[in-house]
């Protein structure tokens, strides 16, 4: 399956892009998307504990099952206001 990764703030800078496609094996879960990205960008490892993942605009747990075409957003700690 292929999902669309959207990244913000510091994670966007570490990934070097605000948006990209990511191909994952069938049955992949949200945490697998993160792990696949961390292989390419090891600096992500240190950010895991502070990052929330959203699937199609809703914050989800790491074991959320993904489907082809999903958007997976990587959300650093909030800094608004």
């Amino acid at each position: 399956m292929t999902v669309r990764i959207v990244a913000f703030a510091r994670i966007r800078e570490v990934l070097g892009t605000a948006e990209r496609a990511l191909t994952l094996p069938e049955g992949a879960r949200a945490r697998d998307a993160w792990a696949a990205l961390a292989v390419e960008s090891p600096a992500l490892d240190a950010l895991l504990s502070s990052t929330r993942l959203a699937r199609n605009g809703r914050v989800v747990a790491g074991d959320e099952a993904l489907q082809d075409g999903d958007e997976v957003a990587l959300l650093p700690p909030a800094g608004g206001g």
Partner: protein
Amino acid sequence: MFGICRTPIDVAAVEAGMREDGIGGMVTFTGVVRERADDDRVVDGLTYESYEPMALEEFAHIAEEARGRWPGTHIAIFHRVGELRVGEIAVAVVAAAPHRAEAFAACAYAVDQLKTRAPIWKKERYADGTPGRWRSNEGPTAP
């Protein structure tokens, strides 16, 4: 009324849109870009970005929660994104209610929640030219 804007927030227009019969007190919070960071470094400005659709949904949820706690309260939330200079308004939260106690409480609640939950991020740009840093509301982040 909720918004993520790339241009200056017109607070007076937002307030005017909230005025209606039955409203007795209106409390507006405006968050302004400060000259000094929490660690006292001189800031040249802040760069904000947001995950816009989710931020707007979060604004609506926060307003709904405030309305549940303080019935009769209306909330408007506007946040600016892009490059802001010192003194510019980054965020405006307006709470209108029949009486002032609820308006104060609902406004403070919405500001607190926004800072904790809304998918919005800021990077400090420094006057001395050193690299900017992303700052979260949970405490300082590593550079």
